């Protein structure tokens, strides 16, 4: 396949950055999108250029490190996948592909296509945990039975990989789906209930402090989420938040 790539190049956080056009040939449909970029970078380097920086690690869709806004969509045109699972068979010979970083005020650009998502970590520091000591003296795990349906729902929420696609795709750069996934996981489990009030208040407060926008129920986050985290979680978080506000 022969492709035209329009790639965002930006030296560092201070640099202004710009789109640059490149041509690439010899791309196979079996390649993943990131393997295509590997091949592209090798080619660029052999011509004396500096490779395009992009985030990636596990390359099997689970670590959440890869990002990329491809042709106007977070993680590109396929559904239910991360960029590392996107394959070139989704594109056609001669296509032009636009590649940009995940853009949001709370995700500043580090270099080229790499952004800083540590705002997500700071939201978790504010309350994304259950306060249990790691003493080895916790009660037997089967002492508290958990309804299978609740456990499965908690799992579905916990499956969030923290990639940030929800933020990147949201017109308000809202982090509601990400935060709601964590709040929901713990709200659905008996172990998380005791701290539920503080957790949701603290996490929502931190989310606002990081500069994420508000949710206007557009639902784009759910569509672009590679792990199928559902909007139901945002509804659950809103309920948790309302009731916590009344108690708090």
């Amino acid at each position, binding site marked *: 396949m022969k492709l035209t790539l329009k790639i965002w190049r930006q030296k560092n956080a201070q640099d202004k950055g710009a789109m640059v056009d490149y041509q690439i040939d010899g791309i196979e449909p079996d390649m993943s999108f990131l393997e295509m970029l590997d091949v592209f970078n090798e080619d660029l380097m052999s011509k004396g250029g500096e490779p395009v920086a992009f985030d990636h690690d*596990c390359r099997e869709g689970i670590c959440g490190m890869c990002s990329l806004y491809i042709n106007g969509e977070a993680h590109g045109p396929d559904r239910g996948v991360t960029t590392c699972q996107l394959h070139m068979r989704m594109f056609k010979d001669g296509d032009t592909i636009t590649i940009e970083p995940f853009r949001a005020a709370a995700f500043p650009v580090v270099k080229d296509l790499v952004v800083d998502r540590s705002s997500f970590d700071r939201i978790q520091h504010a309350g994304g945990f259950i306060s249990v000591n790691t003493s080895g003296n916790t009660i037997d795990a089967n002492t508290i039975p958990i309804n299978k349906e609740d456990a499965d729902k908690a799992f579905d929420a916990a499956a969030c990989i923290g990639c940030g696609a929800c933020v990147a795709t949201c017109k308000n750069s809202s982090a509601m789906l990400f935060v709601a996934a964590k709040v929901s996981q713990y709200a659905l489990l008996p172990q998380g209930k005791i701290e539920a009030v503080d957790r949701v208040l603290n996490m929502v407060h931190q989310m606002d402090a990081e500069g994420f926008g508000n949710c206007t129920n557009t639902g784009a986050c759910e569509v672009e989420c590679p792990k199928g985290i559902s909007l139901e979680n945002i509804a659950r978080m809103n309920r948790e938040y309302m009731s916590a506000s009344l108690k708090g």
Partner: protein
Amino acid sequence: MALDSKIPSGSISDKWTDYKDHINLVNPANKRNLDVIVVGTGLAGGSAAATLAELGYNVKAFCFQDSPRRAHSIAAQGGINAAKNYKGDGDSVFRLFYDTVKGGDYRAREANVHRLAEVSTNIIDQCVAQGVPLAREYGGLLDNRSFGGALVSRTFYAQGQTGQQLLLGAYSAMNRQIGRGKIKMHNRHEMLDIVIVNGKARGIIARNLITGEIERHSAHAVVIASGGYGNVFFLSTNAMGSNATAAWKIHKKGAYFANPCYTQIHPTCIPVSGDHQSKLTLMSESLRNDGRIWVPAKIEDAKAIREGKKKAKDLTEAERDYYLERRYPAFGNLVPRDVASRAAKERCDAGFGVNKTGEAVYLDFAAAIQRYGKEQTYVKGLDSNDNALVTKLGTEVVKSKYGNLFQMYYKIVDEDPYTSPMMIYPAVHYTMGGTWVDYNLMTTIPGCFSIGESNFSDHGANRLGASALMQGLADGYFVLPYTIGDYLSPDIKMGPISTDSPEFEAAEKGVKDQIVKFMNNNGTHSVDYFHRKLGKIMWDKVGMARNAQGLNEAITEIAALREEFYKDVKVPGTDKGFNQELEKATRVADFLELGELFAKDALHRNESCGGHFREEYQTEDGEAKRDDENFAYVAAWEYKGKPSDAVLHKEDLVFDAVKLVQRNYK
């Protein structure tokens, strides 16, 4: 230096309890005066950092990713073992211990493995208390499944994302401590050297990967939790960034490196599709619970399939060779990973492979879909002779068990595994070798500990499925927190360690010199060019099967490649900021040394055991032939300037509680 494993005396089942009763403790007020550095934040490093901080130590944690949540433990799919005996199928601490020692082909340290089995039950309790959503049965209790190499059902799981959920549990425990200020987290930092002052580990030199700044960090002890070195093969199931640098740098400063040749080849991975390939993707071993592995029985059929003239479903059951069920009737498709991997290679080498390159076998769910579908028709009172209905209901059951794995396969291969069998082939997955540690998990550098995959101690020559997660969390949550306190207790009056000493100065200079060298090299080839070449040598000559001739060639070729790398590598850009090529260069430099030691270790071990298969040492029916008389020891290598000069030290393995027998899965 003679190796002292410091295994406590007494009977195997009392060692850990007695040990804990007699170690020195640090009082909580004094823990505030002690700093600990943890390098790596996966299951082992994350759980250790959280627990040490909770105990009161000041923890400085480092990871090269942008968040601790991305550590490669997150990719583990199948599950975590624990001797809970919730199923009442005969499991016990001793049986888990026994299976692990046997599964490791009697090359693990008995005392460590028993401790691991003992604390395994606490791990499940701990994780559930942290809100890890492990799979439940309809009665609300925890569910289990079985895994290769065991006859009991002791594996706890969270769909096919067990590693992710356990890691997020450890990450949440870390978050709690980061929020309290007890852990200072350094994301996007890479440890490039250790600093030793008066014979003790007292700090590290790290590069801030965003600014490029070289930083000095001091502590009273350093914990390495940097994972394995499978990426020495270039193609592996490891994450792209997984590297050996932290472990290799401490080796160069005095930590012995044990059993480097013990590599786990995982039997169920998606086969290589072309030269552009950057990594291999694992399909969870849990699939072997329901998937049947086969190749065509007749070589003509295999050829026809490779040429696209026939399809898997064109062959009747009689025309298929379910070679694992045939060779190992007792364990069948659930034989341990090394046995399953070698059997697949044997069939493919004999010409029965089923993809274009001839390096793939089938993993088939058709029988499971029928079996589950029939069961569902009985449960629901429907017509069990309605084939379409049976298939539909059976597919639903298989989907609920393995749906995410099937989807992953479909996305990569572009073929539907519900209707045509998956193609799989073995790939490098996990390294059982690593830094040598004593019973306290301390390396031969005082004050430098190594936990999880980065040490060598618990898996022997082969790791059973679902035991890596167990070891990572056992070391971090429940073992290191005790042993490090015993080590730190004399240091309570020491005060903060200064970074202004000549030792820090020298270590920093070494790191800077290497970086300057790379930046000014102006060669012609990229880092990946050399990494791929190294990987090819490793896979061809130091991979699933090895022989003396190939190993000797590999040693020479790797040394030559290393020389070429230093002459001809090109690292573009600058060292003053974010530079992914520079990151790769420092890592590949270490792999180019480690690879040679790896081959040297494989060459000296004149036996076959677990993941180490020497073609010269096999039984008449092609099974691995161990030599306990001459090789029942840990090979711990001391660095002497070059991998070829490394000096071998032996820790004899003594088995009191289990009797060494030939592994038999028939």
